[in-house]
């Protein structure tokens, strides 16, 4: 690492309100600098766009369910390895790429940080094994809490302090980043083959409702002052008419205040909102409720969302929402993997073909884009595909294309077998909005970095921030008339400097960089009851020894630990 000067690019940096100014970006070691010496390596970015490295707030890229997907889908790899580069590790897989391909492909798109969206605590050593085998990109992982026996018991009794002590212990034990909720209560019910489809369904045995779990964990999160807000996959995912449940869940954030030292001002991140913005009461009259959902998100300033856009590919769905995957396999009859995890969570995996000639898939596609276009605050609305659920992450450039170009959307829409039916059930056809590069930078960098409490490091190009700089082959002053060129430019960065290392040059990987694992160490005062509860449950109910449960330091060999001293 040394000094690099990226000269004369069109800089887009929403964190400093810079929109296309021609400027130089200086890098000294792993940080952005005010200036560098004359010996710095010069990269000519004239006529090209310069942005901070991308930040992905939600993707399933490492861990047991991702690997179940890889393992059970050899057909996802047959004859497929398009970009494999000599003298790098072999690359494999389309919808669920190998760890090597995951790191390389994110880097090729100029992404610096990716959050693994659901870590089953018992399997956390596995998640970290995969993370350290994913080159280049920085990563964190969110342990799942909303169906965990400890949490359910503490929250039933409204013991926020105990809940917080346990969460802090588990984050440290699993080297986790924040609090993930997946189908609160519903996954716990799935252990008996049941589900919680509304916020007021009682969780079997535990006598608590999803609403109480969400509120309790939101309070726990702010009690601890974690960098990220709670990150929720809501109840009733993927069901016609679910937008009502979605709005009910979002409303739980009303009146909640963010309390943290990471300049985060939101208290809830609602993920892959596309899957939760459905109207109708069957697949027959299925329709978009994107406007209703986004109207609420626009006015409720303390929540963030990510889109979960359907990309119209053959992909692999995977989620800790066990009952949903069972529901899905009964719809499409394809192979189904499930793993119920003792005391903690569950997960399911089912392949899925988003066929553009199936009406429902077309509507789903439109809903994702509508949400991205209706959003009034791109700093609170992030581009994702809930990789690989709605499509693989390598399609982010395609989503950017669709958001930036009405022509591109119309072309896709027109290619559907049932395009008029899709048009009837959605609003996309009427939307003229086209997102600009500044908004795209907000939705893929500045926004997610802020929501994760990482705005001091990622998402912008101010001196002192991490030297994650990407140069795309796009002329800000003369954008291509062919939308395909937008997709192409975002797919393969011309240059990508990650923490000061040139990791991509001309769209190809140039170095393995120096990836890190981010985790949060919230120090709370010792809580004898929680310690006692932990010992007891490991003795009686778990099948793994407590001693062997916390993830070894050697599994996160290059850690970036965010320490928090929680005031009593």
């Amino acid at each position, binding site marked *: 690492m040394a000094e690099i000067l990226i000269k004369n690019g069109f800089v887009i940096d929403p964190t400093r309100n810079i929109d296309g100014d021609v400027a130089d970006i200086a890098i000294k070691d792993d940080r952005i600098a005010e200036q560098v010496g004359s010996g710095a390596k010069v990269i000519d970015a004239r006529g090209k766009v310069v942005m901070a490295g991308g930040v992905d707030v939600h993707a399933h890229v490492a861990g*047991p369910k*991702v*690997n179940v997907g*890889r*393992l*059970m889908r*050899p*057909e996802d*790899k047959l*004859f497929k*390895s398009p970009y494999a580069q000599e*003298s*790098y*590790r*072999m*690359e*494999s897989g389309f919808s669920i*790429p*190998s*760890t*090597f391909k995951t790191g390389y492909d994110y880097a090729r798109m100029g992404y610096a940080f990716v959050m693994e969206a659901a870590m089953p605590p*018992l*399997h956390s050593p*596995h998640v970290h*094994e*995969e993370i*350290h*085998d994913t080159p280049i990109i920085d990563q964190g992982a969110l342990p799942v809490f909303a169906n965990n026996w400890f949490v359910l018991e503490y929250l039933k009794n409204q013991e926020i302090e105990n809940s917080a002590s346990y969460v802090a212990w588990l984050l440290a034990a699993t080297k986790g980043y924040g609090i993930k909720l997946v189908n609160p209560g519903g996954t716990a019910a799935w*252990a*008996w*083959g049941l589900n919680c489809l509304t916020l007021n369904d009682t969780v079997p*045995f535990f006598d608590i409702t999803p609403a109480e779990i969400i509120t309790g964990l939101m309070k726990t999160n702010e009690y601890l002052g974690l960098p990220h807000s709670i990150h929720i996959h809501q109840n009733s995912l993927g069901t016609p008419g679910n937008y009502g449940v979605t709005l009910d869940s979002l409303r739980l954030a009303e009146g909640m205040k963010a309390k943290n030292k990471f300049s985060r001002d939101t208290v809830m991140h609602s993920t892959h909102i596309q899957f939760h913005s459905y109207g109708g009461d069957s697949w027959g009259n299925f329709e978009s409720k994107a406007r209703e959902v986004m109207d609420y998100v626009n006015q409720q300033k303390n929540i963030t969302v990510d889109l979960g856009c359907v990309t119209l590919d053959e992909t692999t769905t995977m989620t800790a929402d066990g009952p949903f995957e*069972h529901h899905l396999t009964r719809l499409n009859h394809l*192979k*189904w*993997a*499930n*793993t*119920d*995890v*003792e*005391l903690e969570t569950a997960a399911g995996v089912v392949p899925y073909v988003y066929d553009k000639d199936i009406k429902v898939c077309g509507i789903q596609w439109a809903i994702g884009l509508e949400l991205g276009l209706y959003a009034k605050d791109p700093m609170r609305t992030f581009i994702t595909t809930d990789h690989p659920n709605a499509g693989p992450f390598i399609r982010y450039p395609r989503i950017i294309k669709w958001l930036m170009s009405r022509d591109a959307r119309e072309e896709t829409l027109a290619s559907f077998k049932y395009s008029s039916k899709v048009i009837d059930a959605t609003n996309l056809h009427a939307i003229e909005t086209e997102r600009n590069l500044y908004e795209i930078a907000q939705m893929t960098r500045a926004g997610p970095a802020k929501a994760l409490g990482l705005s001091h490091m990622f998402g912008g190009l101010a001196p002192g921030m991490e030297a994650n700089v990407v140069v795309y082959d796009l002329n800000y002053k003369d954008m291509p008339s062919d939308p395909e060129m937008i997709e192409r430019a975002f797919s393969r960065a011309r240059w990508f400097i990650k923490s000061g290392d040139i990791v991509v040059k001309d769209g190809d990987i140039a170095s*393995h960089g*120096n*990836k890190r694992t981010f985790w949060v160490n919230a120090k709370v005062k010792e809580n004898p009851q929680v310690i006692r509860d932990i010992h007891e449950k490991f003795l*009686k*109910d*778990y*099948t*793994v*020894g*407590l*001693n*062997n449960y916390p*993830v*070894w*330091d*050697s*599994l996160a*060999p290059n850690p970036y630990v965010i320490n928090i001293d929680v005031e009593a």
Partner: protein
Amino acid sequence: MPKWITQVGCPYCGSSCDDIEVLVSDDGKKILETRNACVIGNEIFHHVSSPDRPKKPRMRQPDGNFKEITYDEAVDYTAKTLLKSKKPLIYGFGSTNCEGMSAVARVAEKAGAVLDNCASICHGPSFLAIFDNGYPSCTLGEVKNRADVVLFWGCNPMHAHPRHTSRYSIFPRGFFTTKGQMQRTIICIDPRETDTAKLANIHLMIKQGHDYDLFDAFRTVLRGHDIPAEVAGIKKDQILEAVEKIKKGRFVMIFFGMGCCHTDGRNHNVDIAISLTRDINSHTKASIMAMRGHYNIAGPGQVWSWQFGFPYCLDLSKGTHAHMNPGETSSVDLAMRDEVDCFMNVGTDAGAHFPIDAIKHLKKRPFITVDPNICMASEISDLHIPVRVVGVEEPGIVYRMDNVPIQFKKVVDGPEGVPSDEELFDRIYERMCELTETEPIWLPSREHAKAPTAAEQ
């Protein structure tokens, strides 16, 4: 003072018990006593201290005898042999940690090798079934805490997984199963009256080789159709009774083993068992699990899946992409068809466990064994390289039969100068890079991060 080390993992069967207690001598070199382990686990811990263990690589000489050589010489020979071969086969990994499996994958990629593990002759058909039909499963704690109907189909844990029934599946009292065995209905399907069958409430003594037919009968009954008076040697009444128990269960667990994988139809016996599990989920909750044989034989399936996308039988000879198709890229088929020109046996004993014909074919070419102990494969090898014993002398991640990762401790120091699998393979890789004048590919964050010693924990 000798010291007790607790919550030690046992490097024997797929139960991967991690509650073993080991008494270690003052100098930290000898194991004096163990608690909680089964007879087999106990044997492993004690065998480590055996004075007969080889501590140096041994190379076969023209006269047929072994001669001790240095590790450098062994590494050099292995690197050159792998590079020279057009299609080497690297097989085994029944008894290594994931760190070793990861290191060997880099070697295999460099060597353009086929990389395969013991599943190939064991639960490989289960993988084929999972490819075709998925895997609705759970962790073993779910069985302990919830299962009230447990099927053992073509498996015999009382012999192959001695503590399985007491830790997870029959006897333990769990959160919702407070009465333990009293609360569970045990159904065993086996052509013999095994010691597991003796524990069962219902034993269906099936006609050997007709598991698929019986599964089909279960499914047919479950969908409300009639079946013939007898299927696979089992009377209709008995089948109806078993299905009724299953339907009444609150949490039905199916464990299956080699009785499905080693017999006619192989993968389809498991395949239809998975279909049955799917069907039962329309009535109540059900899960299925392969009784994986070794403490970390689920490991290579995990490591290689995230690295290449396939759990076993990986053909890395094509350079640009990995290819897998058991039947073609599986060790025994490759051997019988003379499709590989070098064989490396790692952490297993192909000499004892392959059909002897396959060994005769493999022996036509260079044959290398990496294993802590003297075994049949080592005794017919051209080169035997001893390594440390994982779970005893070397810590590491292992994956239990339910794919739960367990961090196995080290309890005693290995023999001086003897490397771990990971160290050995990294040295072989480095030597291969030197010989080909290429840059080694290390992932900066990953390499050589050492797991903690028992004392550090």
